[in-house]
């Protein structure tokens, strides 16, 4: 299968994350307005380019680009980029971009280094084919039924929006820890002084989890609905399912501790870090270490 377009956009996004990271870093160090503007513009261009990786990949493989590790990595990177830009637009903090774009670059790098079997666009196996009949019927009127989506697409998309939000919260929690330590010491270097204050970082980290948690939940529930159609049971304690529940429980604990017991700041940040370690294991660890029904992604 030819994948020239998606490869081109991938290379393009890959290099632009690198450049964008540099501009954000430059803005952080030199505090020149034009550097920040360029960095933001680059982040938008890269978002567009990453979108095109997914779109061209879908066009090349004939199904939504959510069926293997490489594709899910691109989706992950795309969702983090989108989430970051929403946050930058709403809260006008640019310094965080230096972290985000570097992480994006590393993620793209690791995606590109994956062995071929995780990358090749394979046709979907029987269990992964799940189109919504009502949507197929609806689109048939316009002759577009091959663009119908289904549980696979919905399940993977919502789950990865959740992962991305948790990743953003993870980054914010680390920044919080650094900032909090230097705030308590009193003396702040010029680097750390440019970072938003600890209170804001803490609150933003919580907001990110407040987005991630419902999306993860919808991802889990849609997976259950789908499993009920494909396998005849909505929950089978498969390692991926179990780890998604573990992650869900940790973030549920985070939300309860924060909202009702006033766990803020450092303690909340530590819980958020633990939560993200669970996310990483849920995403990568389960696929590589534990055998199960989700072995394909």
């Amino acid at each position, binding site marked *: 299968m030819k994948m020239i377009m998606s490869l081109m956009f991938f290379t393009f996004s890959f290099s632009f994350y690198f450049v964008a990271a540099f501009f954000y870093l430059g803005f952080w160090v030199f505090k020149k307005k034009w550097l920040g503007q360029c960095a933001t513009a680059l982040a938008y261009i890269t978002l567009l380019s990453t979108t095109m990786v997914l779109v061209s990949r879908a066009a090349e493989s004939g199904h939504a680009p959510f069926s293997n590790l490489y594709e899910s990595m691109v989706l992950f990177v795309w969702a983090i980029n989108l989430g970051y830009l929403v946050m930058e637009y709403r809260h006008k903090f640019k310094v965080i971009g230096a972290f985000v774009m570097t992480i994006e670059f590393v993620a793209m790098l690791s995606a590109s280094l994956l062995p071929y079997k995780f990358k090749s666009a394979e*046709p979907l196996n029987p269990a992964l084919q799940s189109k919504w009949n009502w949507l197929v019927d609806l689109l048939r009127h316009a002759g577009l039924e091959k663009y119908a989506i289904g*549980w696979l697409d919905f399940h993977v998309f919502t789950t990865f929006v959740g992962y991305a939000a948790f990743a953003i919260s993870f980054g914010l929690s680390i920044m919080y820890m650094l900032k909090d330590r230097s705030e308590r010491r009193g003396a702040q270097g010029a680097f750390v002084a440019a970072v938003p204050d600890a209170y804001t970082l803490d609150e933003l980290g919580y907001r990110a989890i407040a987005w991630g948690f419902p999306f993860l939940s919808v991802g889990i*529930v849609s997976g259950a609905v789908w499993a009920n159609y*494909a396998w*005849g*049971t909505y*929950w089978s304690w498969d390692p991926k399912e179990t780890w998604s529940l573990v992650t869900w*429980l940790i973030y549920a604990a985070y939300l309860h501790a924060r909202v009702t017991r006033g766990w803020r700041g450092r303690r909340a940040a530590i819980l958020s870090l633990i939560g993200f370690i669970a996310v990483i294991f849920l995403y990568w660890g389960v696929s590589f270490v534990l055998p199960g029904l989700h072995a394909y992604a």
Partner: protein
Amino acid sequence: MPDKSKKGQAHQIEGGGASRLKTLGSKVWYFFNSLKLTLTVLISLAVMSVLGTVVEQNQPIASYAAKYGAAWTKLIVYMRVYDMYHSWWFLLLLVMLTLNIVVCTFERFPPKWKSLLNHKKDKFDPKLIDRLSNGRTFIVEATAVSVRQRVQEVFKKKGYKVMTFDEAGGYGVYAWKGIIGRFGSDFTHISLLLILIGSMLGTAYGYKGYKDLNVGSVMDSPSGDYKLRLDKFWIDYYDSGQIRQYNSVLTVIEDGKEVLTKQIWVNEPLYYKGTRFYQSNYGAAWDKIEQAYLALYRKGADKSEKPFTVKWGESAAVPGTRYSVKLTGYAADFYYDEKTRAMGSISADPNNPVVLVEVWEGKKPVSSSLLFQKYPGIFPAIPGSNYDLAFVNYRPTLFSGLSINNDPGTNVVWAGSIVMGLGFVFAFFVYHRRVWVFVAASGEGEWDVKLGGMINKNQLIFDRELKDIAGFISTGKFRS
């Protein structure tokens, strides 16, 4: 008055027992009304679940002994780690979580409901604004009418509901929106209860089964009130040769009538009267084939003649002879028990396929013979003649493996999921905001405005919103 004192004592004893019961009750209540308990249970469930993925589940005990040694295995068996998610103490944690949710809801929901129901009756107190952490006071220069208008307009634009109080020395405005956001957590908690109830219903009353059904065969439904026939089974392939989909066509037969015919595939089960039939396996039958390809040998000839087809259970003329053959039996992996003289198949795999054929000459039966695909000619098909038959090939009868599932709890779980979704929208994306404004004259065309508010979540957004509102009241427009 000894009697009286005795009576009093008796009362006391009774009262003591009741109150001891009462204190025990309140202790239990207090125990389950704790958020520390919530956190403990959530984290314990997480740790137990992780343990369940580390220790492989439902393996034979011997394999644990080989992997972890005798001492650990003893612990694994004792603590039921080998079947973690059905162990009594995993269930105990779930029960504790349930009680925790129920008690917390009972404790917290009614006062919240009451206060939210009566919020409009609360007295307006300008001094409270100063006590709010985001409370602020600023001076506005404008006419009385335009200040009043601005205050009304800004809340209307932001989608707030408004009440105005006329007070001594000025007037107050109370504005609010997003009350439903306060009930988000209750929705999610109730949804969790629904999901737990649904899964318990499934465990208690659900039915799970599996059945291999040959093409053309009929099976009874688990409830026995209708039958199911497999009309067809086939596999779709991609151009590259990979399997695209497994398909079966099923017909529901009720009271001898065909009620419904449906094509099922992986991800598309047949649903009939509460039971779902899933495509989950397939294979070739071991005791039946669709048709056999037989070939005729003439004695002395070095090659067989062109093969001809015999369908299962039917007769076919042997071309060029006066014989006909009937296909009466098949075994995929031939087996013969010398003691009982029973014939059959030792496995379901076609390792040694055999057909049983009857040979007829007109209306006279001639013989009944076994023909081996792999060992042609070991038994003569038509003894005492110049002919022999060879079993060349066959077309298998496919069976479709159907998972059968009737889970009355599924719909409860789905209902719970929908409630949970609603709960999340309310809890995370609808904020309950309340803003209080007090306007008092401070000079000619000059107004002292006090403004402050409360939000149940997302302080960052709210700080900016208050700034926006204050800006509008000062200038009559929003800053871009």
